[in-house]
């Protein structure tokens, strides 16, 4: 869509869907792979399904202003639910489907959800368990009928039955539905999303139609998204990004949302769909690159040689071509050839043959990874955003893409840096409020509409690009007063394929230490190659050779950190490899896999003490939570090793000067 002015009538998601059903009648709106075949629904069919569902919800007496929780994987029926709920004047609240019952209980209670739409039996069970403490839910609607026969059906209905009920009640309720749709405008609530809660309890972020539609319009124009684009919807529906891509932008542009068969078929489905517009957190790109590299290690010598040659050329030429810089005719020819024989097939295997715009965000991405995809000719860019901003704060324009910045302010967004270095923004996407939490709303958003991101950053003078250093509250001082920015070092560590997660400790301490998680895929493959037997993650993590490798990585990172005059104090003097993977089920990370420092420093207090008291090994016991909620204990002896720390450039200069003085 090239419309720049929002049409007067297009002031809600249902209005956009209705427009699409007229303007893009026979274009696919949703696809889902089921029973091995991609099923698709056109915009007009989708509207019909959505209206049937909305009528059914009315028949079940869904009131204006009610909250409806939606818990399930990405499926057309769940996207329809979000629109149908809004049609009824109610508020959709998508929840993380891998949340455990206690987390779910809090959100259900806080939002006061009267209706819950569950993907399957597993989610229904959790809602029932959550009801031990919360009694807000009147009705449970489920999408997948499997295993549901034995439940008490006085207050449970399958989604298909709700739709059938709605179709039957059409003549009776259609006028009421149309009246409720007509009441919707720019200020009515579009969706409520719970933040993952790195600190404290999750907060319900209320986004209005204005937030979502204006953001969708601006961002779609920025990347020239069109009705012919295809996205793969595989990220949690409770995450703001998925809502903007698969509901906001999809409704605005009228493009097609493709839902994979299940989480474990994502890669195959990605390849079959070949999206033109794709978003993934850095770890997805990392995972793909790791698996490509592992498979190339196993390839024959000729293939390996061809791959290495092609990639060397692509690294030089690919990004230049993407950015429209000049490239010599010989290089162009070589690149064309490798596109035909190596890069093309590789992109096809990865599912990136048709990609036009790719985004990554959420965490820093390693320069090697970033360059790899860009050299394949994939227009991978970075954006910076948060739920409260309806995603977009800054993003990288085509042709100005770098791995260490997050781009320029998105259209319509104002960004300023406070005196303390914290990033503030104000935009059409700025959230309405935190639900039932006026205090937090007031402390986050000032009366002029400026929102504190909680991140410390600065604008690069030469390019006008924003660079993010760390969470503002995590930036601290070491005992000697030098700056401590843990994430800066952690990101450098995580760029090594062998390291999955790292937690750097050092605020107020004399030196920095690190707790490290190895990447089981990469290290496991290395172990296999070197005939190293291991029975568990724990055993592999404690292997002396693994320690040696990780130690080398740590020292390389130290060498790189030492170059930075401000942050050279953040070099890691001692480290250990954790005996278990950090896990959201144990509360150590958020559902979007951000580490929770507070929890980690409490849970592993004994390990951290040992890192600072000079012991070379420590016996520890950790409580773990299994997927089904049961708890167990994990015992281990964890080894601690020292790493070489280099003098900072400033110290080195001083020393050199002192030496010179002494010599004279």
């Amino acid at each position, binding site marked *: 869509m090239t419309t720049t002015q929002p049409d007067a009538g297009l002031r809600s998601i249902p209005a956009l869907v209705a427009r699409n059903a007229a303007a893009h009648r026979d274009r696919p709106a949703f696809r889902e792979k089921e*029973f*091995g*075949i991609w099923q698709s629904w056109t915009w007009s069919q989708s509207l019909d399904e959505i209206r049937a569902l909305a009528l059914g919800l009315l028949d079940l007496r869904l009131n204006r202003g009610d909250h409806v929780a939606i818990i399930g994987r990405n499926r057309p029926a769940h996207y329809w639910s979000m629109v149908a709920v809004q049609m009824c004047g109610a508020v959709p609240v998508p929840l993380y489907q891998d949340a455990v019952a206690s987390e779910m209980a809090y959100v259900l209670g806080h939002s006061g959800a009267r209706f819950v739409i569950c993907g399957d039996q597993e989610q229904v069970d959790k809602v029932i368990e959550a009801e031990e403490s919360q009694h807000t839910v009147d009705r449970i609607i489920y999408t997948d009928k499997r*295993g549901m*026969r*034995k439940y008490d059906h006085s207050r449970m209905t399958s989604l298909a039955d709700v739709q059938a009920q709605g179709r039957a009640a059409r003549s009776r309720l259609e006028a009421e539905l149309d009246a409720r749709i007509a009441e919707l405008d720019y200020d009515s609530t579009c969706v409520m999303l719970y933040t993952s809660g790195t600190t404290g309890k999750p907060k319900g972020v209320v986004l209005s139609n204005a937030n979502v539609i204006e953001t969708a319009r601006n961002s779609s124009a920025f990347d020239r998204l069109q009705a012919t684009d295809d996205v793969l919807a595989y990220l949690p529906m409770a995450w703001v990004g998925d809502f903007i891509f698969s509901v906001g932008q999809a409704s605005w542009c009228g493009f097609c949302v493709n839902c994979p*068969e*299940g989480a*474990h078929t994502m890669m195959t489905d990605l390849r079959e769909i070949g999206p033109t517009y794709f978003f993934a957190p850095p770890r997805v790109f990392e995972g793909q690159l790791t698996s490509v590299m592992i498979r190339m290690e196993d390839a024959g010598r000729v293939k390996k040689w061809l791959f290495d040659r092609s990639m060397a050329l692509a690294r030089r030429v690919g990004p230049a071509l993407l950015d429209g810089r000049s490239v010599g005719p010989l290089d162009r020819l070589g690149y064309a050839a490798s596109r035909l024989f190596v890069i093309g097939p590789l992109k096809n295997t990865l599912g990136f043959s048709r990609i036009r715009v790719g985004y990554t965000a959420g965490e820093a991405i390693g320069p090697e990874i970033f360059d790899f995809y860009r050299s394949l000719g994939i227009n991978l860019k970075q954006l910076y955003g948060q739920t409260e901003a309806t995603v977009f704060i800054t993003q990288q324009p085509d042709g100005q893409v770098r791995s260490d910045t997050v781009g320029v302010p998105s259209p319509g967004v104002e960004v300023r840096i406070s005196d303390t270095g914290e990033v503030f923004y104000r935009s059409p996407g700025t959230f309405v409020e935190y639900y039932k939490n006026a205090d937090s709303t007031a402390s986050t958003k000032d009366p002029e509409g400026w929102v504190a991101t909680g991140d410390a950053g600065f604008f690069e003078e030469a390019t006008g690009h924003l660079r993010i250093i760390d969470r503002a509250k995590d930036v601290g001082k070491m005992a000697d007063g030098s700056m401590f920015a843990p994430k800066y070092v952690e990101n450098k560590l995580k760029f090594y394929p062998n390291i999955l997660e790292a937690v750097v400790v050092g605020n107020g301490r004399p030196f920095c230490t690190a707790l490290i998680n190895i990447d089981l895929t990469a290290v496991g493959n290395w172990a296999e190659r070197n005939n190293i037997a291991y029975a568990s993650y724990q055993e592999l993590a404690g292997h002396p050779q693994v320690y040696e490798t990780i130690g080398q990585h740590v020292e390389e990172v130290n060498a790189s950190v030492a170059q930075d005059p401000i942050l050279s104090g953040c070099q890691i003097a001692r480290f250990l490899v954790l005996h278990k993977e950090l896990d959201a089920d144990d509360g150590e990370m958020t559902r979007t896999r951000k580490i929770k420092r507070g929890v980690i420093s409490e849970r592993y207090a004994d390990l951290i003490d040992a890192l600072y008291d000079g012991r070379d090994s420590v016996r520890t016991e950790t409580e773990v939570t299994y997927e089904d909620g049961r708890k167990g204990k994990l015992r281990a002896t964890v080894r601690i090793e020292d790493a070489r720390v280099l003098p900072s450039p400033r110290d080195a200069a001083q020393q050199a000067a002192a030496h010179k003085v002494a010599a004279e």
Partner: protein
Amino acid sequence: MNEHMTTADFEPYTTADGRRIGGVMMDLRNITLRFGGVTAIKDISFDIREGEIRAIIGPNGAGKSSMLNVISGFYVPQEGEVWFRGKRRPALRPYQVARLGIARTFQNIALFDGMTVLDNIMTGRLTMMKSGLVSQALWWGPAQREEIEHREKVERIIDFLEIQNLRKTPVGRLPYGLKKRVELARALAAEPSLLLLDEPMAGMNVEEKEDMSRFILDVNDEFGTTIALIEHDMGVVMDLSDRVVVMDYGRKIGDGTPSEVRNNQAVIDAYLGVAHD
């Protein structure tokens, strides 16, 4: 030997969790099976009712697998009768058994290692394919339609057992637990009314066992399939089954609901290893 069967036993009833258990589907009467001088099964009688999960348990060498082979028609007992759906069953060829609606899995997985998961499951529908060799080879007209129809059924099973990501994976590359699942899928592809499972959970870890138990219950629940299974893990058996037959040294030493069997002295002795005369 049939003194435990009163007419009340034949009344259909509904279990606590809402499943309907019907009349007798298979009745085994005074079965004795010998291999040369070895008597594997000695005068055993029991029945399997429509819609139930029936377990056969017992220590190693008790004759459980032989019993399952008698039920499946692979072994023909020297003495005794097998009644299936109210008729005495004569000796049958394996394909005739399959057509009766009986399917099974094996203790030591019998899949085609070089074939993909999908192809392996498709073989479960072979007895139902009608088109001839030539039209199948040419994949023409009716053969094509037929394959699409069968593929649809197979896809539903793939969805049911949650193995969508393995369709194109050769079976030989799968770990043990998943092979077991594929074997179950193949048995289900035949749309059996009676499903025989020979140690479906042998060699599995706790998580795999839980998954498999879930699938067995779901199969029984969703498709109404009657299931007879042999299993070593007592915990699993007691949770899953409606009724349990206990065998020891080829004899039946107990028969009843899990709680009845658990309290049966003969069963306790057999499992704790009391000396036999």
